């Protein structure tokens, strides 16, 4: 049992490590592809060469990030099969379809058009090239859509039913899966967070050039596009994050209590814990600084809602575990004799709580002999690690509001034509680049660590989802992944810095096409 626990911990660590590395690249790809489409749209409409230079320069950075994003994402698709074989067997019918479509989107649609986008400038007409760039943007975001549909199923399993004959979940409604509120809110929040990441990235690098008075024509215009794009993205990401929190809170109240550090059921008006020091063992906060009245409207979107606390959720879980035990016993009978009618009837009555009974099997291999203490222990496991989730959530929120403020200032300075004079702001801007990446990673921790102890919420506990590898195998592969992915990060950073230092290929600008610019007019920054 001890070795199994170690293998599970290592499997989780490995998936978390690969996902966190991969997720460093993904949001920038999602957002930068749309920003490229925006810049190229302006180029096609205006005919001004500077927008072509802009698009081509940011395309190079996009390509570096895209290549490493695909490389790091590849392994994760295989990891489901190699390290999480029980999980893959259990939900393969449902999880496999969106995962396969995601692969098709990433490799066939997105990757094919990326090649055309990068190398097709002189081979395609303007309109066709613009269409290609839009296809890249669409492909990358559709790719994200499908993986998030799959992920949303893990958070809120809908459109499926467990079949005791095959011992796996089977898909009943693809539309329920695709249109689930969790999937929708998760996609829009994640995608727009990518937009925000790209906007901050473009602003930071443009500010770097403006400080040094290099590539001014490209930098000033890139800054303007990214500031306007980003300010709406930041508003969107906060609103959509609230929506996702509301939807997730209804479906996963245990994640919600971890995000809010809420141990006792709170009647309206409940206070919001700005900072707290949660003690999971004692199920209380050792210290908390609260803003009164804020939590109830924030969580329930009403002024009189009640928010169930962790202690009551544990009691509910105990009831569900006890109710699920007959289902698990019946399932074991059915595995020996699939035609046992009594067992099938018992399973139909108690099957909804099968996953909860599986939680207690961790402590009592014969669940019929489970003691009240073991049931309580299993029920307490349903509360995810509160400290990391609570603080990751606050880091994400703080970063989101910091970026909103930053982008409002960026937009005002840009629209007023003052940005090149705001040297302090320009000095700060490059240091803002890591902020969205930190927020993205923190958001991922909230979503995935907050789902524990489940791989599929309420259905399949994490502790039985992993493959039965040896500890040595897991350590070897974990070290290998971390080493290779660290090299990937170093390569990305090296290439990014190299191309950023080099800057866009912006020789003296030719005059814009007569139809769209004043004849003979020369830009203020054309020779910069």
């Amino acid at each position, binding site marked *: 049992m001890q070795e199994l626990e170690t293998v599970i911990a290592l499997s989780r660590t490995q998936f978390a490590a690969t996902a966190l590395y991969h997720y460093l690249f993904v949001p920038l790809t999602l957002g930068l592809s749309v920003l490229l489409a925006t810049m190229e749209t302006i180029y096609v409409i205006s005919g001004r060469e500077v*927008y072509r230079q802009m698009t081509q320069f940011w395309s190079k950075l996009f390509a570096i990030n895209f290549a490493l994003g695909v490389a790091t994402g590849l392994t994760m698709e295989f990891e489901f099969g190699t390290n999480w074989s029980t999980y893959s067997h259990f939900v393969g019918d449902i999880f496999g379809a969106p995962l396969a479509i995601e692969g098709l989107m990433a490799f066939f649609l997105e990757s094919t058009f990326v090649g055309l986008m990068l190398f097709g400038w002189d081979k395609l007409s303007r309109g066709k090239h613009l269409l290609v760039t839009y296809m890249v943007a669409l492909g990358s975001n559709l790719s994200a859509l499908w993986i998030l549909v799959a992920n949303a199923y893990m958070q809120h399993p809908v459109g499926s039913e467990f079949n005791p004959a095959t011992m796996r979940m089977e898909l009943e409604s693809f539309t329920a899966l695709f249109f689930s*509120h969790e999937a929708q809110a998760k996609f829009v929040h994640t995608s727009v967070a990518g937009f925000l990441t790209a906007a901050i990235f473009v602003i930071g690098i443009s500010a770097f050039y403006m400080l040094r008075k290099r590539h001014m024509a490209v930098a000033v215009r890139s800054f303007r596009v990214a500031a306007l794009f980003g300010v709406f993205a930041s508003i969107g990401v906060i609103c959509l994050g609230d929506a996702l929190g509301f939807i997730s809170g209804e479906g996963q109240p245990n994640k919600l209590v971890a995000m809010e550090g809420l141990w006792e059921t709170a009647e309206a008006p409940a206070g919001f814990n700005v900072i707290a020091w949660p003690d999971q063992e004692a199920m209380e906060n050792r210290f908390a600084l609260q803003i009164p009245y804020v939590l109830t409207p924030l969580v329930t979107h009403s002024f009189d809602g009640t928010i169930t606390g962790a202690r009551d959720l544990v009691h509910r879980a105990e009831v569900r575990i006890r109710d699920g035990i007959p289902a698990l016993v019946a399932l074991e009978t059915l595995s020996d004799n699939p035609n046992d009618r009594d067992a099938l009837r018992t399973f139909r009555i108690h099957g909804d709580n099968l996953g909860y009974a599986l939680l207690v099997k961790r402590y009592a291999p014969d669940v019929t002999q489970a003691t009240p203490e073991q049931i309580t222990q299993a029920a307490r496991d349903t509360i995810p690690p509160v400290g990391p989730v609570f603080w990751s959530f606050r880091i994400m929120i703080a970063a989101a509001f910091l970026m909103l403020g930053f982008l409002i200032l960026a937009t005002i300075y840009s629209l007023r*034509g003052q940005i090149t004079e705001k040297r302090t702001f320009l000095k700060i801007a490059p240091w803002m680049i890591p902020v969205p990446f930190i927020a993205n990673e923190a958001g991922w921790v909230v979503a995935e660590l907050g789902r524990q102890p489940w791989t599929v919420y309420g259905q399949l506990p994490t502790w039985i989802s992993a493959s039965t590898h040896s500890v040595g195998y897991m350590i070897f592969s974990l070290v290998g992944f971390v080493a290779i992915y660290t090299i990937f990060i170093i390569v990305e950073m090296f290439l990014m810095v190299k191309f950023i230092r080099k800057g866009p290929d912006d020789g003296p600008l030719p005059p814009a096409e007569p139809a769209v610019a004043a004849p003979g007019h020369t830009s203020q920054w054309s020779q910069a």
Partner: protein
Amino acid sequence: MKNILLFAFWFLVGLITLFLAIVLGEAGAWYLAWVLGTVMMILIAATGTVILEVDDEQDRPY
């Protein structure tokens, strides 16, 4: 003839867009919001550069 075909093509595009908008609006409101919001953000960002170019042509700082 070419104009009729062009009209028919864009009319078809319009019908498909309407159909998608109705289906998404009914079952996938967040997806529809993403489509509309992303297009809006692209247009607003592009409009910002139009203002910038006008400022540039009139030699105002931008």
